[in-house]
Each structure stands twice: as structure tokens, then as C-alpha cells.
């Protein structure tokens, strides 16, 4: 039981790894772009965060400057003007000139007005209870001092210096001390607020730095994971390619070895004089010819695929009749089909329009499909070739579809995405020792796409497969070619 669970767990982990590997395989195709995009996104995020934090810190600093530094400056100015009020009053004591005394009194009153306005302004902007308390104290203590100041000034102007000094010592000094204390309290409050706001800025700055470090770490981690994923995807891709190539070499070797062995044995028998009768000789000749043809086809397919991959294939495009193509396909595959005991039933819709394409390429494409139908036809040796016009698809417009149907072993749905991959061979057919190179379908697909069409498949395991070649009609092909260029009818 435990072993079973362990197997199931291993199976789950294995499927997860497969999923990751499949994802990485897809990612690998866009690795550079994806990496750049991801790094760009993350960096943009970092920049946005940093800018946001910097702006917030800047706003906070501005608030501190406006609220505290300017406030402190205002309080400093208030203290100066309060001193100026008192100083000017006392200056009036130093002279007997009434004109000068009046001037000093004037200066004192101008300064006291500024202090009064400053206190009113402070109270208007006071928000915290402590601020309001101090403001109200100032509003009470400052007029009290001014009352004494007025008496002192009056006494000075009247010429009663002693009386002025007595007034000042008795009332002016203590009341001005109270004002000075109030102003100190205001200043202390501003200092406290500035300290609090500075702490907030400091905290914001620390938070910003932490966030920056965090995001940079994340970026680093993310970039590392991305690089690892891309490297792994590339490695997987390379491994897969290497495996496919190895499979291909093995498969091709096998495909080559079998007919060669037959040819070699037949030739040896003829050379040894084992075959004497004319009929037997003809039979041996036929075997050699068939296997030679098989070899030639194999080599041709490999060469075709190689040239298609390298972009060296040049197609001669010309108007073609579908029946001509089908006829050629039937002719070329007759021997193979008959030898395998298969029959082909062609259903061609009457009045099929012309298409534009390369005759031999299209014939090759359909031959590959017929060859596959024979190869994987299983116990139902019957193949149907249909050709009909389909114009219901408004996106693609009118097209001709040529389908090759068999009722053979079919393809598992999980295999379908891979059957057009070069060198791919299903484990089922490999196990069943059905020979092949894994190049037939990729080659057919390349040809279909080169002709401006496509190749699709509908298949069900154990029921059969329908491969359909979709080709644009001549009218649509001409339009397509007109947009491509009218200088040549050849297409690589």
C-alpha cells in the first residue's frame, strides 16, 4: 500500500515536473523578450515605489518646513518684536527730547501691533489643545504688559522719569517676563512638533529604504529564477532535440537497413545462381525495384525536409486542377496501397475550382498522408480521399479541402500536438515496430503552409484519423500573391 502511495506521489511529482518543463519549453521560445519584459516590469515597479516614497518624503519635509521652520521663524520674529516694544519704551527713558520720546513711543507701538497680529495669527492656526492654551495665555498676558507699557510711556512723556521706572519695575518687568515665558512655550511646542515630524520623516525614510532593498532583492531573485528557467528550458529543448535526432538516426538506419538487406540478399541469390527460372528472376527484380524505390523515397523525404528547413526549397506555383493532383497521388501510391491490401475511395465534388500551387509538392504532401493512412490503417484497409469546397468560414474565405480518412489505430489526443514536430514518433507506433522517420507529417505541413494553406487533423484512438489539407482557391491565392508580389510564381 505504502509502495503504491509512494508510486502515486512519485507520479504526481513527475507530472508536476512535466508541467513545469512543458511551460519552460514554451517560455524558452520567447526567453529573451520575456526576461526583458519581466525585468522591465519589475524595474518599473521599483522606480514607481522609489518615486512615490521620495515624493512622500519630500512632501513631509515641506510640511515640516512650512509647519515648524517657518513657524519657528514666526515665533522668533514675534520674540524680536516683543523685545522691540520694550526696548523702544526704555529708549524713551534715555532722552529729555520730547520729539525723540514721541518717536520711540511710535516705534514701540508699531512693534506691539506686529506682536498682537502675530499672536492672532498663531491662535488662528493653532490646532492642538496645548497650542490653543499657550495662544490664549499670550492673548491675555500681552495686553496686560501693554497696559503697563502705556503708563510707562505716558510717564516718560510727561517727564516723570522716576514714576516711569517705578511703573516698569512694579508691573512692566513681571508682565513682560510672563510674555517671554509664553513665547518660549510656543517655541518649545514648535520644537516638539518639529521633532515628532522629523521622527515621522525618519521612519518614512527607513521604510522607504527597506522597501527599496526588499524590491531589489525580489528583482535579483526573480532575475535569477528567470535565468535558471531559461537555461533549463534551453537545456530541455537541446536534450529533446538530441533525443529526436538520435531516434531519427536509429529510425533512418533501420529504414535503410531493411530494404538494403532485402536488396542485398536478392542480389546475392541472383549472383550465386540460386535463381534460375525467368519468373523467379522477375520476382527478385520486382523486390529489388520496390525496395530501391522505398529507399529513394526515404532519401527524398529527408532531402526535402532538410532543404525546407534550410529554406532552399523553391516551389513553382501555377494553376492546378484538383482531380489532376488526386489522380497523380493515386497513381504514385497504387503499388504501395495494393501491396498493403488497401483500397482508396476518392470522392471529388464536381466543379471544383482551380488552386495555385506546386504540383509535385502538393502531390508529395498528399502521398505522405496516404502513406500514413496505409501505415497506420490497422485492420480496416480502406482509405477515403475527399475533395470539396468550403466557404462558410468567413474569416478564411473560400477554400478547398482535401481530406485523407482512415479507420486505423488513430492518435491519442495527447500525441496530436506533437505529431507535426520533426522526428517525432509516438511511443505506441515505435513499440508496434511501425517503420517511419517522423518527417512525413512535418514535411506535409510545411508544404501546406508554403502553398498558403494549412494541415489539420481530427483523430480518435482506435477509430481512425482524418487529415485535411486546406488550400485557398485560385482567386484568393491570386489576391494573396498580388500582395506578395507579381514578379515571380515561385515561392521558397
Amino acid at each position, binding site marked *: 500500500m505504502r509502495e503504491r502511495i509512494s508510486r502515486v506521489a512519485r507520479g504526481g511529482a513527475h507530472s508536476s515536473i512535466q508541467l513545469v518543463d512543458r511551460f519552460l519549453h514554451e517560455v524558452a521560445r520567447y526567453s529573451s523578450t520575456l526576461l526583458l519584459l519581466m525585468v522591465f516590469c519589475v524595474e518599473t515597479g521599483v522606480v514607481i515605489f522609489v518615486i512615490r516614497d521620495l515624493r512622500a518624503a519630500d512632501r513631509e519635509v515641506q510640511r515640516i518646513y512650512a509647519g515648524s521652520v517657518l513657524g519657528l521663524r514666526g515665533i522668533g520674529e514675534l520674540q524680536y518684536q516683543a523685545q522691540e516694544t520694550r526696548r523702544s519704551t526704555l529708549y524713551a527713558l534715555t532722552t529729555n527730547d*520730547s520729539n525723540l520720546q514721541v518717536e520711540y513711543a511710535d516705534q514701540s507701538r508699531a512693534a506691539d501691533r506686529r506682536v498682537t497680529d502675530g499672536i492672532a495669527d498663531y491662535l488662528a492656526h493653532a490646532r492642538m489643545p496645548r497650542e490653543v492654551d499657550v495662544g490664549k495665555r499670550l492673548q491675555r498676558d500681552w495686553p496686560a504688559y501693554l497696559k503697563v507699557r502705556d503708563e510707562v510711556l*505716558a510717564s516718560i512723556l510727561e517727564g516723570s522719569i522716576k514714576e516711569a521706572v517705578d511703573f516698569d519695575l512694579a508691573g512692566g518687568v513681571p508682565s513682560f517676563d510672563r510674555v517671554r515665558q509664553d513665547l518660549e512655550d510656543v517655541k518649545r511646542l514648535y520644537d516638539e512638533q518639529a521633532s515628532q515630524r522629523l521622527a515621522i520623516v525618519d521612519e518614512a525614510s527607513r521604510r522607504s529604504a527597506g522597501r527599496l532593498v526588499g524590491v531589489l532583492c525580489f528583482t535579483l531573485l526573480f532575475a535569477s529564477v528567470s535565468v535558471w528557467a531559461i537555461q533549463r528550458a534551453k537545456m530541455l529543448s537541446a536534450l529533446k532535440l538530441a533525443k529526436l535526432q538520435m531516434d531519427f538516426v536509429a529510425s533512418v538506419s533501420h529504414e535503410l537497413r531493411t530494404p538494403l538487406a532485402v536488396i542485398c540478399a536478392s542480389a546475392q541469390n541472383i549472383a550465386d545462381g540460386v535463381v534460375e527460372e525467368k519468373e523467379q528472376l522477375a520476382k527478385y527484380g520486382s523486390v529489388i525495384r520496390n525496395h530501391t524505390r522505398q529507399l529513394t523515397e526515404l532519401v527524398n523525404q529527408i532531402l526535402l525536409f532538410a532543404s525546407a528547413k534550410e529554406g532552399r526549397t523553391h516551389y513553382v506555383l501555377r494553376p492546378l486542377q484538383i482531380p489532376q493532383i488526386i489522380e497523380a497521388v493515386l497513381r504514385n501510391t497504387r503499388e504501395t496501397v495494393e501491396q498493403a491490401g488497401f483500397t482508396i475511395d476518392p470522392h471529388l465534388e464536381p466543379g471544383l475550382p482551380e488552386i495555385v500551387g506546386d504540383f509535385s509538392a502538393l502531390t508529395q504532401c498528399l502521398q505522405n498522408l496516404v502513406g500514413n493512412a496505409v501505415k497506420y490503417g490497422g485492420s480496416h484497409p480502406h482509405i477515403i480521399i475527399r475533395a470539396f469546397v468550403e466557404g462558410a468560414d468567413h474569416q478564411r474565405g473560400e477554400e478547398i479541402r482535401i481530406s485523407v480518412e482512415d479507420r486505423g489505430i488513430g492518435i491519442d489526443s495527447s500525441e496530436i500536438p506533437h505529431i507535426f514536430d520533426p522526428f517525432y514518433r509516438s511511443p505506441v507506433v515505435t513499440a508496434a515496430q511501425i517503420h517511419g522517420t517522423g518527417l512525413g507529417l512535418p514535411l506535409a505541413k510545411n508544404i501546406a503552409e508554403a502553398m498558403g494553406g494549412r494541415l489539420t487533423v481530427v483523430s480518435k484512438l482506435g477509430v481512425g484519423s482524418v487529415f485535411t489539407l486546406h488550400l485557398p482557391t485560385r482567386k484568393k491565392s491570386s489576391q494573396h500573391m498580388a500582395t506578395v508580389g507579381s514578379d515571380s510564381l515561385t515561392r521558397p
Partner: protein
Amino acid sequence: MIVAAAVLLLEVSPDAAVSAAGAPPQAESASEQSLAIIVNLSNPVDNLSLQDLRTVFLGERSHWPNGRRITLVMLEPGQPERKAVLRTIYHMNESDFSRHFLQGLFTGEVFVSPKTLANPVGVRKFVFNVPGAIGYVRAADVDGTVKVIRVDSHLPDDKDYSLRIQAHPAK
């Protein structure tokens, strides 16, 4: 003798002189030439007879009814306002004025020594600052910082107001 009488008439009442010449009386012009007696805003006195005003200006009275000490404010010698005050209130010239105060302070008959200021603005500011101060400026120089008191129940704008500055200096 006739010329002297004409000059006296002009000094005491310029409007009357102008009327005599046949021109219509100009209240505004008269007001500009009127001399306002000003006190501190806190001073309860609103009206003084010319005689009481003379007593105050001569320094023979030391305190106001509210108990504030009287402080007399004068402009510097040579100014038209001072001349008008000397003429209409003191009935003295500069030397008599100086002698009066020197002598009065020495004998103790005078309680107040006048403060001398250079210009009407200074006078106004002084009166504004000192609750017991009394001074004089042209009616046009008066503002809201001081109070103008009536003299014989007349304000400077009134036709029968007696304190006026001489329009043309006497020859």
C-alpha cells in the same frame, strides 16, 4: 490808528473781514485755518470755556477732573499755530510767555511746564500717548487718535469758533 484797528479786526475775525470786503464767507477755508484744541481720548473733558482754557494753558491748573496730571504741549516758536495760541489764549508774545513760565515755576504759581514739539504730528502723537496731555493743531491735522474739545461750546468748524490762525501775518 485806523490801520491798527483794521489789523486787529482781521486778526480776531478774518471771516468778518472778508465779509466786510463783500466776498461770501467760506466755511471750509475758515475751518482749515481753525486751531483745534486736542486732548487724549481717555480725557473726560469735552468742553472748556476760553477762560478755563487760558487757565490750563497758563499752567495754573495741575490736574484734570479724572485726576490725571495735565501736560501742556506746545509747538516750537515761530510756527503759526503757536503764534495764534499766544495771541488768542495767552495774550502774550514769546518773551512774555517764557518769562511767565520761568517765573511761575520758580514761585510755584505754575504747576505745569510745557513740552515743546517740532511739528503738529509730534503734538498729536504726544497727546495720543499721554492721557493728561493737551495741545493744539490745525483742525485739518486732527485724526481719530485724539479728541477735539469744544471751546465755549464751539467746535473748530463752527462759525463762532474763536481760535483761528492768522491768514496773513500782521505787518
